[in-house]
C-alpha cells in the first residue's frame, strides 16, 4: 500500500496568483510505502500524507511524475517539465472529517479508498486543472 505526499498549501484568494508559482493545492509530490517515516517537515501546513488502500507503490509512482511538454529549440526536439506534478487530488472529494483529523492529531494519516482516490484524481494533461 502506498502513501502519497500531497502539497497542501491552499492557493491565495486569487487563483491566478497562487502562493507557489509551480505547485497546486493537492499536487502529488512524492510516494513512499505505507508505514514509512516521512521527514519532520513533511507535514501540515506544507503537506498532507494520505494512504490509499490497495494502491501499490509501483502503480502510485506513475501519479508522482511531472507533466511534460515537448519542445523544439533551434530545430532540436526536447522535453521539459510543464508542471512538477502531473496529477493532483481534488481535496474536496475526500472525506473531510478524516482529513480534518490530521489537523488535531499528530501524524494522523487519512486513509482513502481506491474509488475515492480515483474520483478525486485530476490529470493536468487534460487541461481541467492546470
Amino acid at each position, binding site marked *: 500500500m502506498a502513501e502519497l505526499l500531497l502539497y497542501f498549501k491552499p492557493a491565495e484568494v486569487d487563483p491566478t496568483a497562487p502562493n507557489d508559482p509551480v505547485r497546486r493545492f493537492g499536487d502529488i509530490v*512524492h510516494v*513512499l510505502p505505507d508505514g514509512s517515516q516521512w521527514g519532520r*517537515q513533511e507535514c501540515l501546513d506544507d503537506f498532507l500524507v494520505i494512504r490509499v488502500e490497495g494502491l501499490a507503490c509501483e502503480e502510485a509512482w506513475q501519479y508522482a511524475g*511531472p507533466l511534460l511538454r515537448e519542445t523544439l529549440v*533551434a530545430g532540436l526536439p*526536447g522535453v521539459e517539465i510543464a508542471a*512538477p506534478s502531473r496529477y493532483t487530488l481534488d481535496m474536496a472529494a475526500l472525506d473531510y472529517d478524516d482529513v480534518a483529523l490530521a489537523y488535531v492529531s499528530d501524524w494522523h494519516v487519512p486513509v482513502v479508498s481506491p474509488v475515492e482516490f480515483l474520483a478525486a484524481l485530476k490529470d493536468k494533461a487534460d487541461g481541467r486543472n492546470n
Partner: protein
Amino acid sequence: MAEITKTIKPGGTPGSDCDYTSISAALAANCGLASKDLVSQTTSVTLNCVAGTGVDTSNVNTTGWTCDSTYNLTIRGYDTGKHAGKYDASKYVIRPASGNVVSLDAAYDVVEDLILDLQNTTSYGCGVKIGATSNLTHYVRRCIIRKSGTGANQRGVDAATAGNVVLLEHCVVYGQSGKALTYGALVGQNSCTLRVYNTTLHNCNTGLWAYSGYAHFYNCLGANCATCFSGNGGTNCASTDATATTYKNITPSFADAANEDFHVGTNSWSGTNITTLSPAGVALDIDGQTVTTWLVGADSVPGAAPSGSSYSDSLAESASSSDAQSASVSLSASASEAMSISDALAAVLSALDGLAEPVAASESASASLSVTASAAEDALIADSCSALSGAALSVSEFGSVSDALGWSLAAVATISESHAATDSSSSAAAFLGAVAEASGAGDAAVSSGTSPQESGQREYHAACVVIVNEFMAKAIFAEERRAVAVIH
C-alpha cells in the same frame, strides 16, 4: 546573510531523522522559508542529501526560485550520500519515474556530488535539462550522470536556453552497456554557453555536441562513443576516436568500465588549469581529490581517493559557490587601508582588459619570437600570461563585482601559488603602481609599432607576474586569510 541547511534522506526508514524524504518535497515547501525568493530573504539554501534506504524517485526542478550569485540554492550529495567517483546504489541517487532527472531553472543553482540516474523511458529525457528561463548561470559539479534505461534520444546534459551559461565540471556521463546516451552533453541554442571541464563521457552516440551556441570544452575525455566530439574538438581534450583536437585515438586505462568505474590508473594527457577559466569552484576531481596537476578527464587525480581521505566537509563547504561568494564579499567589506580591495579589483580588471589585446597580439607572434631567457622564466611568463589573458576575456561575463572578485582571487591564488613570489610588505601604492606600469608597458609596446614581440611581450608578461603577485600580497595584507584559505 543567512544560510539554511536541510537534510534529505530518501526511503522513509522508521527511526530515521531528516527534514524531507525527497529533494522535490524540500523545494515544494520552500525549504521551510516563506517563499522561493532567496534574494529578498537574503538567504542561501543548501540541501544535504544523505543516503537512505532507497533512491529519490522524484524529479528535481528549481523553477520558481529567485536567486543571484550571493543567495543561491545548492543541492549536494553529503556525508553518506556522497559518491566516491563511481556509481554506487547505496549513495544518494535521483531516479525519477519519468521526465528529466534534474531541471535547472534558477540563477546560480548548484548540483554537486550526486548520482543522476536516467532510468525512465521518456523520449528526449535528460540527466540535466536547463529550464526555460533565459540568462541564468548553472553549475553541475562532480556528478555521475548515468543512463540505465531504454528511453530513446536521451541526453546527459541538454543546454538550449537563450543566454544561459552552464558549467559542467568533473562529471562522468555515460550510458550503461547497450544503453548509449544519444548525446553526452549538448549546447543547442545560439546564445547559450556550455562549459564542460574535466568531464569523462563514455558510451554515447555523440559525447559532446556543439550544435549551436558557445561551446568551451577543456580537459574532457571521450571514450567508446560513436563520435566523441562533434562541432568542437575542445582544448586539451582526448578521445578514443580522432575527433578531439589535442589527443586523438587514445586508449584510456579505466579501472573497470564494464562495471561503471571510470577511474583511471594512469593519465599522461596534460590539461588546462580550469580555475583560470571561469568561476569553477574549488578544484576537486570526481572523487573529491584536490587537483594540483591538471590532466584530462573527470578523474584528474588518477585513481580512487584513498580510504578515509575523501575530501573533508571543510572542502565540501568551500566547494559551494555561496561560501566562495561569502568570502569574496567579506574581503571587500574589510578592506580598510588606503586602497580598498574593491578599488584594487577595479584596477586589476582594468589592467586585465588593457592587457588582453596586446597579450593576444604578442602571443600570436610568439612563434617567431627569439628569446634568451631561461626555460623556467619562459614557462613562468607563459603561464601567467595565459591565465590573465583568459581572465580578461572572461571578465565581461561576470554579473557582479563580488562574482568577479571571487574568481579573480582564485586565478591570482593559483598563479601565485605556482610561482611563490608574494611580498607581504607590498604597499597599496606599490600595487597601484605595478598595475599602472603594467598597463603602460603594454600600451607602449603596442603603440610603438617597433617590435611588440621583443619589447612588448616580455615586459607585458613580466608585468603580469608583478600584478598577480602584488594582488596576492594585498589580499594577504588585508588579513583575509579565511578568504584565501577558501580559495585554496
